[in-house]
């Protein structure tokens, strides 16, 4: 079943057309990758999907619901989670608080009287959820550290945990391995595999680490200069001459 169906997305900035009639389909539980040269429009595409940007043309359907005019927060409640190319954690909070904000937003605990009557303290159910999420990613030990003290690799995992705790059906990941060292990248790949295979969360991944894409992704979508130049099963796309010329370089595998 097609979970996300974006058709003919076009986005213009001033003089530049960053996306030209791009399509993207992600099936439930599928692991898809979006690749392409720098400035091809990958992050812009994600921003259109999550509502951070409004596409000039095209439609986005999620679970057959039209997302036009749906604000970003609402899209998260519908089940789209994401991480960012430049890490965005909430400053001045602990790791656990990051997840807590996500949990409460999804349980609609934002009402004033809730705070006044019950106070905003961590409940034991919430503690359990945050602990188990962090443990699954192997970072249970840092639950109560302030985010300012995290290394890049940890911070990327925390961002992922924050997205996961909302129990999304679709996870959009923008270069989750960038800046990580080899071990951290391997660990990240493992985690992503786990998330997709065992919890059947559909993943759309932007990556420049070709090996990682090759290992993880079932289908690949290739953007170049804002246009979709190829898509299909990973190995087929990697063998495509056009893709090799535009992105991979001819000598890669």
């Amino acid at each position: 079943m097609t979970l996300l169906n974006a058709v003919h997305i076009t986005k213009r900035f001033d003089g530049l057309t960053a996306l030209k009639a791009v399509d993207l389909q992600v099936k439930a539980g599928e692991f898809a990758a979006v690749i392409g040269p720098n400035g091809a429009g990958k992050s812009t595409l994600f921003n259109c999907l999550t509502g951070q940007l409004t596409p000039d043309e095209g439609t986005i359907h999620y679970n057959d619901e039209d997302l036009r005019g749906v604000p970003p927060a609402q899209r998260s409640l519908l089940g789209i989670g994401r991480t960012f190319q430049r890490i965005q954690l909430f400053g001045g909070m602990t790791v656990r608080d990051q997840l807590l904000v996500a949990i409460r937003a999804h349980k609609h605990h934002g009402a004033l009287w809730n705070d006044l009557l019950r106070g905003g303290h961590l409940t034991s159910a919430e503690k359990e959820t945050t602990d188990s999420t962090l443990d699954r990613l192997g970072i249970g030990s840092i639950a109560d550290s302030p985010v300012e003290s995290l290394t890049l690799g940890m911070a990327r995992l925390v961002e992922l945990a924050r997205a996961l705790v909302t129990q999304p059906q679709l996870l959009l990941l923008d270069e989750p391995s960038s800046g990580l060292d080899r071990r951290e990248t391997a660990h990240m790949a493992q985690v992503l595999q786990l998330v997709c295979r065992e919890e059947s969360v559909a993943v759309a991944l932007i990556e420049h680490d070709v090996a990682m894409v090759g290992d993880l992704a079932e289908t690949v979508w290739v953007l170049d200069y804002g246009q979709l130049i190829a898509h299909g099963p990973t190995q087929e796309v990697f063998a495509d001459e056009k893709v090799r010329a535009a992105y991979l370089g001819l000598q890669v595998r």
Partner: protein
Amino acid sequence: MVDLVEYAIRGIPTGCVYALLAVGLVLTYKTSGVFNLAYGAQAFASASVFYVVRKDHEWPLWAAAILAIVIVGPAIGLVLERFLFRYLRGSPPMAKLVTSLGLLIAIPEVVRLLLGSGSRKNPPPLWWVRRTDEWLWPQGSSVVLDAGQIATIVSTIVVVIALVFLFARTQIGLKMRAVVESARMAELYGVNSERTSMTAWALSSLLAGLAGVLVAPLFASLNPLDLFTLLVAALAATVFGGLTSIPLTFAGGIALGVLQAVMAGALPTDSVFATGLRPGLPFIVLFALLMFRPGLRTSGELQDPLAGVDPPPPSPVTQDQPKWLTRGSRALMILLLLVACWISISVLDAFWLGLVVSGVCLSVILLSITVATGLGGMLSLCPAAFAAIGAFATAQLVEATGMTVIGAMIIAGLVSATAGAALALPVVRLGAVYLALATLAFALMFESILVPLSWVSGGSVPLSVPRPLIGSIDMADDRWFLLFAATCLGLIAWVVVRLREGTMGRFLQALYTSRDAAESIGVSATRPRVMAFAVSAGIAGFGGGLLASYAGQANYQASFVYLVGLVWVALVVSTGARSVLAAIISGMVFFLLPAGLERLFSWPENWLEAHPDASGPVASLLEVITPSWAVPVAFILFGAGAIMYARHPEGSLQSQMSALGRAVNRRIDPGGEPPDPADDLDRESSADLVGPS
């Protein structure tokens, strides 16, 4: 038609004044990153120096001009850069705004202390021609330009051309903008950031001096408030230029002046429009621009990419102290406040008791700042307007319906909260600086348009508000009123603490530090902020009603002028924006400090009276000190508090408390150092080797 053209031409000199001020503000913002509300105060300082040397000491014009504009102006700028703004480079825009607010309060008082506080009538013009010389322009028309106006027009045009040229043809503007964004990065590019930022401050302060000396003759006497209000009127032009474009800002200033003149000429003089709209026009234009000008929604606040070079800030103490300690210290605080209450009731005389009660009422209002600015991260500059709304509503409700005062105060709070929500809806998406400007515009629109209306304020005679009556307890007795006010304060403080520690506080914090990320996990970008704003306005409204009830009347001029609101904001934010205790301390200090200082400064006089035979140096020294120092010194201290904020952006109280908390923690658990945020997992082993220095 011809009339309109003539009106328009008449507006050009005023437009140039706006343009001159606005261009200077934009220049400061562009080249130093500070939206410098103290720009008018700097202008006032130069104008005062010019006045003193020119009129009192009768210096020649050129010497006076050089001293006031070329020497004093930049000197002030350099001092500010060296001792304040240098330390604020990487701080959020809010910190810089609050610091400039402190300067706005302190500089005029310092000037008064140094140069004497007598009123300075008829400021001298910066021009060789006498004021009476007038030209008719265009020939044959009735438009009259005097020398001062021509001087302003010429200087403005020269300044604008020079600045445009400077930015287009040299690298200096580029360097300054680079240093504003990240001084360290500029260094990596090979730019001497210290010298660049000193040049920027000297240049913009030179312009402030020029503007002050040029504009001063427009007023009958030299007065910082007039200059500041003129500056706020000119803000519309800066927003028109998007805080970046100097030519656009110039155009905006001229357009504003022309619009104002045309309105003045074309509208019948006795209509509501003329009386309300004319003085309010610049603020309406400012507000409208903020709402509709594209490009202000995406807040362009950038983090210094090299911030990681600094050692991480110490974690807030609440994170690493045990729960019982938090609870214990809170219980202790409440106990202390109760004791203070009891002492006030049983010991203080009527004068001091009155001040304490006023302080408690004000503390309630100030808690609104804690909610909007501390929790919400929104620098709202209109707390006094919401307090006034509450005060007026209380008065009108009691008068119209005869309901109980307490009920009226609660409804007034709701009225004010509704007004707050209505203002918040369009405003909360703006970037930090623009949000502050929008609230300032609101405060001035309220003051110039709504306050004069009799269905709002009751007209020129303040509406009276009775004291509450509960059963047989008559609050006309100040002691009962104190208990009542303190109970209200306690309740509202409890609400604020609950919100801060609850979901609301977390949502607001998340939105403040990363809006995109907060939205990506389902936090609405507007709802929590609108709610915080409304709660804040509601608290201010209730507090305003309380204060009015204590004072017996809802007196706008005495209690709620917008400038007073700015002092409140500066006080609370600099003491600790997120802390309830800070709001309470600020409320008390606001009333007790000036009175206390007055007592202190009247001591020499009394002593001299008691010892008429005293003479010599001691007596002459003591003679200098008079009780009239009290208010200036108090305001300088208020301002200094906000200025100190430059060094402790979490607020002075908060930084003291954090240090104290860490010390207590060490006492309790000498082995386990509180976790330093720098010691994360993979650094831990190396940190063990050295330990904290």
